[in-house]
């Protein structure tokens, strides 16, 4: 099912949900 | 007074036939509607006020028209005369438009465009008139200053499927989707505007310029983390210092979140949401996307 595979591929690229120094500081 | 009234009405008719609207309006204005000498019913008073306002509006004279619409506003609430009431609404919307109170004008135009009856008294309300009112509502909303109330009206108009048939729809769509409008699109939109909507403001911008630059600035703030004023000027099609001036005013008026580094000549746009909240939002949309995929698989029997 190519469409589903493309959707999964796009979904995986959204991981990790966020990456930024500011986030790390806020998160800690 | 009766004779004076008849003569004035006759003269006004003649002025009107020669399209000397303001002279016709002045002629009718001389009628003493508050005279104690004879009984004048409210409907007559209302009809005269509305007629005078409409004549002044033919010459885009909002000031004089407003004076008579204000008089009419005391009479219209008790009037059962639907035609007059409709004409009053149209005059009022046009006066707000001429006074550049665009958002209020848009709401009234939109209200007029939603009339269901196609026959009011001996007046036929044709589709084209309603479409004109709807188009005027869209134009005024686009020209209104960017902000949450304008966004709400934009959403209402965008979701009204009648708008998708309007010539102005592509612009409405881009404005609603907060997309940058390029110069060719703005020029095409400018051709549809009335003279007062292209008037030069005290800060040397036209009404249209200001509305478009503010819109494009907000659209750029959705696309950029930061941008140099040089590049912003190129993107908006204006001089960099003008872009900086408008951006600083919007930030000051809290209509856009950001900060300006004048040394680097860069504007930093800020996200309304905190980093942690953004993280939450990203996770929510990730889970939503995952659900969409699982639903898609279920639909396909996988």
């Amino acid at each position: 099912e190519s469409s589903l595979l493309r959707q999964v591929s796009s979904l995986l690229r959204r991981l990790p949900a966020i990456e930024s120094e500011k986030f790390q500081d806020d998160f800690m | 007074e009766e004779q004076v009234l008849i003569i004035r009405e006759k003269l006004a008719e003649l002025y009107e036939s020669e399209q000397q609207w303001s002279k016709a309006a002045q002629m009718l204005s001389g009628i003493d509607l508050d005279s104690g000498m004879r009984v004048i019913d409210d409907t007559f008073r209302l009809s005269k006020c509305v007629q005078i306002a409409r004549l002044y509006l033919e010459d885009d004279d909002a000031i004089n028209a407003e004076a008579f619409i204000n008089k009419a506003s005391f009479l219209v609430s008790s009037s059962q005369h639907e035609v007059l009431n409709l004409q009053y609404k149209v005059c009022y919307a046009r006066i707000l438009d001429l006074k550049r109170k665009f958002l209020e004008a848009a709401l009234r135009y939109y209200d007029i465009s939603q009339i269901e009856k196609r026959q009011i008294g001996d007046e036929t309300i044709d589709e084209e008139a309603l479409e004109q009112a709807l188009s005027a509502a869209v134009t005024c909303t686009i020209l209104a200053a960017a902000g949450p109330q304008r966004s709400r009206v934009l959403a209402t108009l965008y979701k009204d499927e009648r708008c998708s048939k309007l010539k102005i729809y592509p612009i409405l769509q881009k404005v609603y989707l907060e997309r940058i409008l390029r110069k060719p699109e703005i020029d095409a939109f400018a051709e549809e505007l009335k003279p007062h909507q292209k008037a030069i403001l005290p800060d040397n911008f036209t009404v249209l310029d200001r509305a478009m630059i503010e819109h494009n600035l907000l659209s750029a703030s959705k696309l950029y983390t930061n941008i140099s004023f040089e590049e912003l000027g190129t993107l908006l099609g204006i001089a960099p210092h003008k872009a900086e001036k408008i951006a600083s005013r919007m930030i000051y008026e809290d209509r856009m979140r950001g900060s300006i580094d004048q040394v680097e000549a860069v504007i930093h746009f800020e996200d309304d949401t905190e980093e942690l909240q953004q993280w939450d939002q990203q996770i929510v949309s990730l889970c939503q996307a995952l659900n969409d995929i699982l639903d898609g698989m279920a639909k396909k029997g996988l």
Partner: protein
Amino acid sequence: MDIEERQAEIIDHFVKQATANKDAALGSIIAEATSHPSLFAFSEILAVPNVAELEGTENTVILDLLRLFAHGTWSDFKSNAGHLPHLVPDQVLKLKQLTVLTLAETNKVLPYDLLMLELDVANVRELEDFLINECMYAGIVRGKLDQLRRCFEVQFAAGRDLRPGQLGSMIQTLSNWLGTSDSLLVSIQEKIKWADTMSELDNKHRKDLEDRVEDVKKSLS
């Protein structure tokens, strides 16, 4: 995934067209598909038997072109231009859009210099206009342009067709994600249990204290 919903019908249309035609006739169909402004997926068309049968025939170039749009980039085209048909502007635009999707597969932050190199773009304004008008407003990517750091931060990118061999690593990533999620849930469960235990201990400790206060009061009275 509105990009997938938008192109589902278009894919069906071209799959039907490809199924109903053979050999050279497929050329115009593939050219039309690779020029269509809203189509960014080609593996379904690649899977049509008539298309696969082009392999090794004098029309194999049609198959190569479709493979390029399914998995390749603008750079791939330039390095094979001699063996591929000439691209019309719509195809060039699409291949560059697909190139952005491929670049976004490996990094969430795309440097302007890399993008300008890969897309053959001369300056920042032209690059940003391309990313804004042809990528973000086309709905294939979402993100933020950072002029100071000269990079494009990708928040969402539509999925491209999977290249042969990519499925394994995707399954691996999903397994890792599943493992991480499971262990996260376990550790959250433990934290909850720990918190419950601690609150029970606190409550017991507070009750003991209250009892002792009562005893002292009684002994005093």
